[in-house]
C-alpha cells in the first residue's frame, strides 16, 4: 500500500526524521511542507531515503527563500498535495 508521508518540521528535529525513515518504504512519497521544506537545503535527504519521490510545497519554499537548484525535489502546489493524498492508498502526517 503506497503511502504519502508529509513532514512539516525542520531537519533539527532529528528524532522525528528517524521515525519517518524507519517507517517509509520504497514506492512511498514524501511531501515537505512548512518548516519541512528546509530539507531542500541539504543533501542529507537523498542519501537517507532511496526510491522515494520527494515533493516540497511551493508556497512554503518561496516564503522561506530556499533556492531549488539541481535538486531531486519537485515543487508541489496545494492541489498537487490533495492529488498525492488521493493517489496513495494511505497517509501519514509527521509533525
Amino acid at each position, binding site marked *: *500500500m*503506497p503511502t504519502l508521508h508529509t513532514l512539516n518540521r525542520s531537519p533539527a528535529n532529528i*528524532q*522525528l526524521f528517524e*521515525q519517518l525513515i*524507519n*517507517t517509509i*518504504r*520504497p*514506492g512511498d512519497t514524501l511531501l515537505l511542507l512548512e518548516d519541512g521544506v528546509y530539507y531542500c537545503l541539504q543533501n542529507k535527504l537523498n542519501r537517507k531515503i532511496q526510491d522515494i519521490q520527494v515533493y516540497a510545497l511551493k508556497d512554503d519554499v518561496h516564503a522561506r527563500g530556499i533556492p531549488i537548484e539541481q535538486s531531486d525535489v519537485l515543487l508541489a502546489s496545494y492541489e498537487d498535495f490533495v492529488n498525492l493524498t488521493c493517489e496513495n492508498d*494511505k*497517509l*501519514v*502526517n*509527521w*509533525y
Partner: protein
Amino acid sequence: MTADAPTTIDYDLLIVLQHAPYSSAQANEALDLALAGGTFDQRVALLFIEDGVYQLMSEQAPDAAQQKNLEKMLNALSFYGVNTLAVESHSLFERDLHPEKHINPKLNLELLNAKSIQALYDRSKTVIRF
C-alpha cells in the same frame, strides 16, 4: 514484508504519543481521544515513543503540580476496549528507563522494535500524532 504483500487493517486509529506528560495537555487529550474511540467501538491502538514513554512511568504524583493523574486514564483504557498499548523499546533504553523498575506494572505493554512499528503503521487506517 515486501511492498506488494497484502496488509490487513486491524486498527481504525493509531494514536502516537510522543510528548512527555504534565507540561502540556498533549498526553491528556490524546488519551481522551483513545477513550472516545473505544466508546464508539472503534479499534484503537496506542504507540508510546520518544518522550511519550515518560507517560508510562509508575509512581506519578501529579497532585504536587495540581494536575490530573494520567495513570488513572491509562488504567481505564482496557475498560473501553483499548488493549493495544505498544512502546518503542529504543525510546525506553535511550532514557535509562527499565520496564521492571520504572514502568506502571498494571499496563499490558508490548515492546516493539523499529520493524514491528512499521507493521503497526501498516495495520492502521489512520495515524494521529500527539
